[in-house]
């Protein structure tokens, strides 16, 4: 059963992630008074991209390997998670640091690929993406450490369930921080600074095409879904029922609600400049630090 759970994780995320992008596109279109593509459009896009030509502007192995490794380390992170609060077989040899570093690795591969393409626009995007990672990854880490501090266990399932174990000051402060950081985690407006289509032409993705691009898009979808899942299972774990199927169902509904939220904010906000965003992230960092401090003191 614990082995099957790993596959359930992977299949659940792989199947649902493009659909959520469809939700996001549809909603954005409605807000902008357009009809919008059908909900299954992202699946078709992926299939179409798989059949296209791979263009290689870098001419080195770093450029070619990057999308594959970015995708696989994102999946590796997903394989570890306790989907409905139950730890799976991988929990015996991983913990929350493994998860954080798998997520970082996924972003890191994208950066190396972008720099490997030799395109200066991609390099600008990579530089921005790295700055975002530097400032945002600690917020994610602090969320999980909050759970660790509460329970006194470094494992991932303890960290995830520990956040909502008692709902005091630190819980609510961390919830506020996470909601404020959500757009940035999802790389949507006002924080799609690294891609910024009209400004630097999709930045790190610029030189990628065909199947390589399909992998990177898929990775982005998985990443967004992961952060939505984390919000639901860290902060709302106490409302999820014990039954696996019901729990999964309710989780899916809640994840879709989170995506509605992301699309609403995304469609109605202009983009920040990177220097403005850095100040915003610094504020989040300080608030998250205070939240962890409160948790250490038992509040």
């Amino acid at each position, binding site marked *: 059963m614990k082995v099957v759970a790993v596959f359930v994780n992977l299949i659940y995320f792989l199947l649902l992630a493009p659909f959520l992008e469809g939700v996001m596109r549809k909603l954005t279109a409605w807000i902008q008074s357009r009809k919008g593509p059908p909900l299954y459009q992202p699946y078709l896009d992926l299939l179409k991209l798989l059949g296209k030509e791979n263009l290689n502007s870098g001419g080195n192995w770093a450029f070619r390997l990057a999308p594959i490794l970015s995708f696989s380390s994102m999946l590796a992170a997903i394989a570890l998670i306790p989907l409905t609060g139950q730890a799976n077989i991988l929990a015996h040899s991983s*913990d929350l640091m493994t998860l954080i570093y798998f997520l*970082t690795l996924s972003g890191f591969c994208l950066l190396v690929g972008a720099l490997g393409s030799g395109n200066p626009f991609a390099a600008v995007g990579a530089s921005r993406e790295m700055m975002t990672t530097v400032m945002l990854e600690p917020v994610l880490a602090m969320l999980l450490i909050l759970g660790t501090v509460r329970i006194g266990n470094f494992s991932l399932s303890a960290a995830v369930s520990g956040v909502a174990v008692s709902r005091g000051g630190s819980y609510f402060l961390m919830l506020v921080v996470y909601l404020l950081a959500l757009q940035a985690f999802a790389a949507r407006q006002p924080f799609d600074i690294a891609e910024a289509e009209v400004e630097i032409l999709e930045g790190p993705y610029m030189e990628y095409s065909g199947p390589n691009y399909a992998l990177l898009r898929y990775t982005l979808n998985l990443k967004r879904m992961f952060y939505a899942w984390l919000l639901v299972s860290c902060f709302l774990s106490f409302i999820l029922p014990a039954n696996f199927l019901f729990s999964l169902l309710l989780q899916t509904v809640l994840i879709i609600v989170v995506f509605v939220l992301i699309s609403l904010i995304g469609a109605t906000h202009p983009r920040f400049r990177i220097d403005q965003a850095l100040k915003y992230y610094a504020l989040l960092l300080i608030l998250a630090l205070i939240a962890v401090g409160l948790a250490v003191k038992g509040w």
Partner: protein
Amino acid sequence: MTILSGFWLFWLSLLLASFLALILKKKTNYLRSAGTLLLCLSCLILILISLSILGKGGSPLEFEVKVGSFHLPFLIDGLSALFLLLLSVLTLASVIFSLDFVKKYKGDEFWKYYLILPLFIGGLAGLLTVDDLGPGFTLAWQLMVISSYLLIRWGRPTKVSARPALVYLLFMEAAWLMITGSAFLAKGYIFGDSLGTVGLKLAQSGPWQAILFFSLLFLGFGIKTGVFPFGQWWIPDAYSTAWPQVSSLLAGLLEKTGVFGLIRIFFFVAKSSGAAFNPDLWGKVLVVAGVITLFIGTVQAIKQSDYLRLLAYSSIGQVGYIIFALGSSLLAWNSSLPLAKSLASVIFIAAVYHSLNHGIFKGLLFLLGGNLLYATGTRDLNRLGGLLSVMPVSGFLAAIASYSISGMPASSGFVSKWLMISSNFLAGRDSLLLTLSGIVALFTAAFTLACYVKFFGLAFTSAGASWKLKRSIKEVPWKLLASEIFLTVICLSQAFLPMGYVKLIDRSLGLSSGFLLSEAGGDLLSGKMFSLKIHDGQSLLAATSPLLMLFLIVLLAFLAYWFSRSAHPAETKVPAWLCGYQDLNLNNVYADRHVFSDLKKFFWWTGGSPKKVIDDNDPTVLPDSQPKGEVE
């Protein structure tokens, strides 16, 4: 052959190497082979000595040498043997690297290098083996300082090297004064007492003397390891001035002898001095100093355009991690929670593990910096780019080294940081200081990543070195690469055999008598060869397995590969697309000074802004002996 005679043989071959350099002088080829052979021989002897002490049935070696009226106490226990092992491995790599490197750079003057290098190695080995703060320490320290001063001085044209070398010398002498002077605070101290005796005598001195004693030693060894702000004053200049293979020893080992000194003082002398040592106070001092050092050092590293300075600043940051872990270990040991008390030794092992890891990958990175210098002649990241296609082997090794130092999954840096950070959070559950400094340490890990993405990305991927330098760039000779492959293999073993190294460190601590944490209690750390686990009774607190992580990523990468190639797409090589109007050329490259510019601005208050990068072939720094004004 006894261990003691091996030790003398080691010194003999070092001195012989130095002596031959004096005789052979201009016969460069003989000089190179003889020097290399003798240095390698002495490294091998040193490896044998360390292994026979650490191996089965080994025991610490203690002896005294009489020089005139002075007694010099020597002690090679488990901890010394471990650091001697690191020394010999790094020296082997550095010596093999120099074989071809010196040929290109120093003309027929390099006999001076072979004259001094053995003395430098001897000084380092001496520091790791002497067991006093008096004459023996002074001898070893001065040998190390003066020889490394000369090596730094000769690393670049005098105009740029004179000042950094002098600053280095002054700081080291100040540190020496503090360290040897501190022992006089112990009541009834006689110049030349062994460390254990100093501790016992300190126990009978007043409380203020004890605090002053530990402060002076903390400052002295702190200067040597590069604690903020001392590190910033000498490390970046010194490391970027010396030859890369010397910097590799400076960063890989010279800094670690400072860590070794701190360990000797705060975990050995502290024990024998009993109540005179206040673990709470010194734990806090080390944690705060470590956290400030690791944060400031790493943020400053991001700002550098000179890749040797970047590596130097980042080694300040990495040493900060080690000092932080040492302090956190003291605090955990002093804690009232039984779990924290038994985690203290885990955090300590993490500190030693990180010292070994950092020694290897920073040594490797400096050698790779040497590759770049050898192949391109510039130390400016702004002028590099796209070297991956012309220097594939160097690029691959640099990728592994950068990956390891960033502590990414399934790397040696990950293992030691995991040990350090997970046990720090578990032990410091109720301590605001430990939790918050653990978070800063995690936060800084992301900066380290940014730093090495920049280093690797701008030198090896990206584009442009051939236009910017207007020369053809070739892969470096195989001897340079061989030494780096040797270090890379060790670096990988540190990643995938974590339990092996933990056992080695554990054994070395078992072979060191008078260790503060030896009675700290339970063995929480367990695991098979490939994995590590922290257990408290039945419950699993934290676990990691680099090999499994690698397996997971590779397996899923095959899945990704299969998925992305399922429609058999064609692949075409195209030029980078710049909106259709332009080609990729000199003016269209994203240079280093722009990378992370907003982040650099945001952290302006950390200081360490980059200096103008001056290369050795720049006309303004060529030696004065060059003919002047004869152009007409």
